[in-house]
């Protein structure tokens, strides 16, 4: 009996020992997604979504709430977790015409820059963020997002300006009173009068969100100053005709509660000055009324054209432009909304700082149940399939893109916390930039060079001859030669064409990539049956900077791209996406795109809504609806003909055998799944139930990467900062302070920090000194010299610490107040 028991223990031990590595191996070898599937259902209400999450009826809600009560409920629930995004922001748009509206007796105080500037002191942004928005907002003073890299780069400048323009109602009243008197207005019984009539302000207040309360708050402040405020409440449809269509000189409004959104992290917001403050922004009457000072106008123009020679020069221009933006203040930036995206605690998800969950490129690669692989995730999205899906001109609804992004892959993917690209199908990239341009790089897979001139090779492709069906080279179009400012050479992974498979079983080929190039030109050619008027504007904007491309090597794929468009980050100029068969609205293998091409050329359907309207046909939908029957007919014909699109050009790369296989596998795919949506991402589209509003995604088992590839991304690594030091400093004596930067209770790795800066403000809120802290052991040390402390005035001074991370674009701040004593 005893021997039997021992035997069983031994046997069990052996089984465990043998099974463990096998299980570990299976786990390690899991490819693509962590979970087996995703089921998306429609859930438009945030309150209902949270109830369903708590009841475990949903695992995640791919939308955000800005309702403070619901956000608080999410944060307090032990069953739920959440991420925060910062993409939406509110401002006050002022009518700048005047000071008297032409042809009227009506005064417009906001025509005066100093009055607009004084509004910065009048409005208490913290009140808006904390009281009106219940803590769901971050005060904003500047035309750059507080969560984006430019703010981190200029954090010291931003902090200085924020302190200069912090809430000071008495100062606002004094400046506004002075300027109103200069305009000839008089204060009678606490009410401003102009030419014998009360000065009334027409305030356009949007009612769809917290802008209603913000508008009421600001209107109350203006009334407190002696203005009569006429509040006009309305939705976009009611107020847009007034502020964006009508000439502001008609004087039908003074202030409007504006709102804007960023769905991806923008690493360069230098163009915002030109767009928001000058008449070059847009050809709308309001923009044409802008009259920035000549210096600000020049600055905005230079920044937009990237007319600077170094990063330092740009920083100086930006600093000055920020200052002038506040002096101009045709827009008064108020607050950035924090949106909370909830999911169940047992789920791991990676959100994007700007786009949250629905804007995250990484969610398909990272979504998983904690501690295990497999399982099916149920997600709720506010709307499902509101528009048709097709890769060329399909749905661009954020909630549709969230789902079809899971079915596509990328050569590079934007880092959700910094906006810089990460490698997915690219080995390395060589960027050559014209000498003198202030371009830098941060990634080791990018090689950055500078050259006095960059000539585009004669055999590079720059166009397409639709009639002859052949590419046009630089030699033909520009016999005198052509120069570029940037050359990007992209080295894709060596085994690219062997490892990347389409969901229907076909392999990626150069035909997929080159068809997208042909369509780039073909759709803008008026002689082509694929000509699409709505595409022309974006094609024109592309042509402005495009200088050619060249396939240097077919396998392994090496491609060159020439352009006159440049950015400060070399990583953002790779143009790797130009050699990848993902179109604006989804993945597009040549064979599924070809079916759409045939249908559009025959006038049976069209890719875009605009062309469908123009031709009075249906817009192509690859996943459901009546155009599936059209695509079925095209598939039958294409299979019978063994059709190769633009065969004269693409026949070199797409052989008849490949075409045969493509059509055969596509027919099997259509029969099995009931649609034509074929991608190459970590999930395939399993089934669509359009009326029931359900989309099912299933893990793609032949995805080339292990599931562990992006495990390093989790929550954004925001730094916690604290400042310690003496509470009293004697002027003329040295003072030392310590800045502790931590993350989850542990010191923040110094190699992940860009810089730790300090700003010293005296009792009058004037900047006395600034500099960088020095790392000493685990803390960052600031030593104020005798000379610096001798400049402090007696009273309460403040040392501000600004911490900028390399791995997350949101800077962190902390401050310490101390008293300075006069020297003995």
């Amino acid at each position, binding site marked *: 009996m005893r021997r039997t028991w021992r035997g069983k223990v031994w046997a069990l031990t052996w089984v465990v020992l043998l099974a463990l590595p096998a299980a570990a191996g299976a786990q390690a070898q899991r490819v693509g997604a962590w979970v087996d599937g995703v089921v998306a259902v429609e859930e438009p209400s945030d309150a209902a979504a949270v109830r369903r999450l708590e009841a475990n009826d949903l695992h995640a809600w791919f939308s955000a709430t800005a309702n403070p009560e619901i956000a608080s409920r999410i944060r307090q629930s032990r069953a739920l977790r959440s991420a925060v995004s910062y993409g939406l922001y509110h401002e006050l748009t002022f009518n700048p015409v005047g000071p008297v509206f032409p042809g009227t007796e009506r005064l417009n105080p906001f025509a005066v820059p100093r009055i607009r500037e004084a509004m910065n002191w009048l409005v208490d942004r913290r009140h808006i963020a904390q009281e009106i928005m219940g803590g769901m907002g971050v005060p904003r003073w500047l035309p750059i997002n507080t969560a984006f890299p430019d703010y981190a780069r200029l954090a010291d400048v931003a902090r200085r300006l924020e302190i200069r323009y912090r809430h000071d109602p008495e100062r606002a009243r004094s400046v506004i009173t002075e300027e109103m008197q200069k305009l000839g207005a008089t204060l009678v019984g606490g009410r401003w009068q102009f030419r014998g009539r009360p000065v009334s302000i027409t305030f356009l207040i949007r009612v769809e969100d917290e802008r209603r309360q913000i508008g009421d708050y600001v209107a109350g402040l203006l009334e407190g100053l002696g203005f009569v405020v006429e509040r006009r409440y309305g939705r976009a449809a009611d107020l847009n005709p007034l502020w964006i269509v009508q000439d502001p000189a008609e004087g039908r409004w003074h202030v409007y509660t504006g709102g804007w959104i960023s769905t991806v992290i923008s690493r360069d917001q230098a163009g915002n000055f030109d767009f928001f403050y000058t008449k070059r922004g847009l050809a709308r009457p309001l923009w044409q009324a802008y009259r920035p000072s000549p210096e600000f106008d020049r600055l905005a123009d230079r920044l937009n054209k990237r007319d600077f020679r170094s990063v330092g020069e740009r920083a100086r221009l930006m600093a000055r432009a920020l200052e002038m933006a506040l002096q101009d203040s045709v827009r008064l930036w108020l607050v950035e909304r924090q949106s909370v995206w909830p999911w169940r605690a047992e789920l791991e998800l990676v959100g994007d700082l700007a786009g949250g969950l629905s804007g995250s490129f990484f969610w398909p690669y990272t979504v998983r149940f904690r501690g295990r692989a497999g399982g099916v995730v149920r997600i709720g999205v506010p709307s499902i399939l509101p528009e048709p*899906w097709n890769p060329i001109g399909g749905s661009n609804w954020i909630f549709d893109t969230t789902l079809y992004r899971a079915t596509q892959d990328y050569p590079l993917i934007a880092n959700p916390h910094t906006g810089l690209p990460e490698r997915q199908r690219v080995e390395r990239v060589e960027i050559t930039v014209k000498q003198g341009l202030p371009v830098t790089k941060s990634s080791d897979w990018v090689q950055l060079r500078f050259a006095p001139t960059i000539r585009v090779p004669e055999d590079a492709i720059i166009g397409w001859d639709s009639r002859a069906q052949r590419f046009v080279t630089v030699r033909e179009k520009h016999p005198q030669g052509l120069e570029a400012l940037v050359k990007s050479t992209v080295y894709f992974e060596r085994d690219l064409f062997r490892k990347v498979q389409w969901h229907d079983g076909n392999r990626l080929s150069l035909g997929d990539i080159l068809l997208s190039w042909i369509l780039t030109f073909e759709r803008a050619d008026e002689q082509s049956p694929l000509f699409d008027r709505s595409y022309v504007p*974006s094609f024109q904007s592309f042509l402005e900077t495009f200088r050619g491309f060249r396939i240097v090597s077919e396998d392994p794929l090496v491609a060159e791209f020439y352009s006159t468009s440049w950015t400060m980050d070399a990583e953002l100029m790779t143009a790797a996406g130009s050699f990848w068969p993902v179109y604006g609205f989804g993945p597009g293998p040549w064979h599924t795109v070809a079916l759409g091409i045939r249908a559009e050329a025959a006038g049976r359907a069209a890719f875009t809504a605009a062309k469908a309207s123009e031709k009075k046909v*249906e817009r192509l939908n690859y996943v459901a609806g009546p155009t599936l029957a059209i695509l079925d007919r095209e598939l039958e014909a294409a299979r019978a003909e063994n059709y190769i699109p633009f065969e004269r050009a693409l026949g070199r790369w797409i052989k008849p055998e490949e075409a045969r296989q493509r059509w055969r596998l596509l027919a099997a795919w259509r029969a099995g799944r009931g649609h034509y949506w074929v991608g190459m991402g970590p999930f395939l589209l399993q089934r669509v139930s359009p009326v029931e509003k359900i989309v099912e995604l299933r893990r793609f088992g032949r995805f080339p990467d292990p599931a562990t590839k992006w495990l390093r991304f989790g929550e954004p690594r925001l730094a916690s900062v604290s400042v310690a030091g003496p509470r009293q400093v004697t002027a003329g004596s040295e003072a030392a302070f310590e800045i502790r930067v931590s993350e989850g209770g542990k010191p923040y790795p110094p190699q992940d920090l860009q810089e730790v800066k300090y700003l010293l403000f005296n009792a009058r809120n004037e900047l006395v000194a600034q500099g960088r802290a020095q790392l000493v052991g685990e803390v960052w040390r600031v030593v104020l010299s005798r000379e610096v402390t001798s400049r402090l005035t007696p009273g309460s001074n403040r040392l501000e610490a600004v911490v900028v991370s390399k791995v997350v674009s949101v800077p962190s701040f902390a401050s310490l107040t101390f008293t300075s004593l006069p020297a003995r």
Partner: protein
Amino acid sequence: MAQAVAVTAPRGGVRQHPAARVLLYAVTRLVALLTAVVVGVYLTILVANMGGYVDQIKRAEIREQVALAVSLNEQMQRLPADVRERVAEQMIRNEERRLGLDRPFLSRSVGYLRDALLLRLGFAERMTSDTGSRLVRQIILDRLPATLLLFLSAQLLLFFASVAAALALSRRYGSPADRLVVALAPTSAAPAWFYGIFLILVFAAGLRWLPFGGMVDAPPPEGKLAYAASVLKHMVLPLASLALSSIFLSVYAWRTFFLIFSSEDYVELARAKGLPGRLVERRYILRPALPTILTSFALGLIGAWTGAIVLETVFNWPGLGRALYQAVGLYDTPVIVGSTILYAYLLAVTVFALDIVYAVVDPRVKVGLGGER
């Protein structure tokens, strides 16, 4: 409730052949109904477009969308100002053309009316159907089955249950059950969606017996029977909400109606003659009440066509109500006009058919006899 109206010929005039009288009456009614449809639909077009002001709203929306698109597009922002302008202007022109804003509203409104009357529903301007079609017909057809399934079921259940219960109560006037229904009738002041939220909180969030919403489980079951069972399970709460919101008032109304008919002189006479109770009920109460019952039933049935916006939203039910609400929000005139004309034709045909049916079922109604019975 609609009452049948007897059409009379002028006294002393030439007496027409009965068939001619019926034909004349039918033609007159048809012309009147068609006129009402034309006027109603054109008014809908004018109202839906705020007399043409919606064009301004749409133009403004396009400009705002383009402004937003330009602000979001770094490539566009990097373009020289004049090029950016040109591109933005072209985007605006393209969209205005697509929505027909390059033509004056009045001429478009006549086109809308003509197409509507001929049932050429055409393409939507902004909306697409669930299956991705731009055809107004498809937008309606995609949602019609789910709408009819829920609201027709509710209507039929409610109607027959109410009438049966009301008849029973009218026989037991003053009984505890009767008093209970009278007491509960005010509960119908709350709309169905209110009960919906309440029922979701109890049966979905609390007890977790029934789903929160939607039409079917996700993912939908593969087999037809399993699918049908899943749909039925998802119908329980919305049906219960609809029932709770109107059953007591409906029973109360019908019961009062039957009580009024029960006290007519001819009913008393029939009872005095000693006719059996069932016969009196069938012949002297139900038959004269039939036109009203039929009218209520028919109008209830076509009322199911429009769905219920808030209830559908609360239960995420893919009904026509939400689609039409969306169309109104998007100022999608073809969809608004398309659904209106279908409802208008449906209503006109129903009213016309009811006129005929009245004559068949109600012995008091005769056409063109000047009230002679």
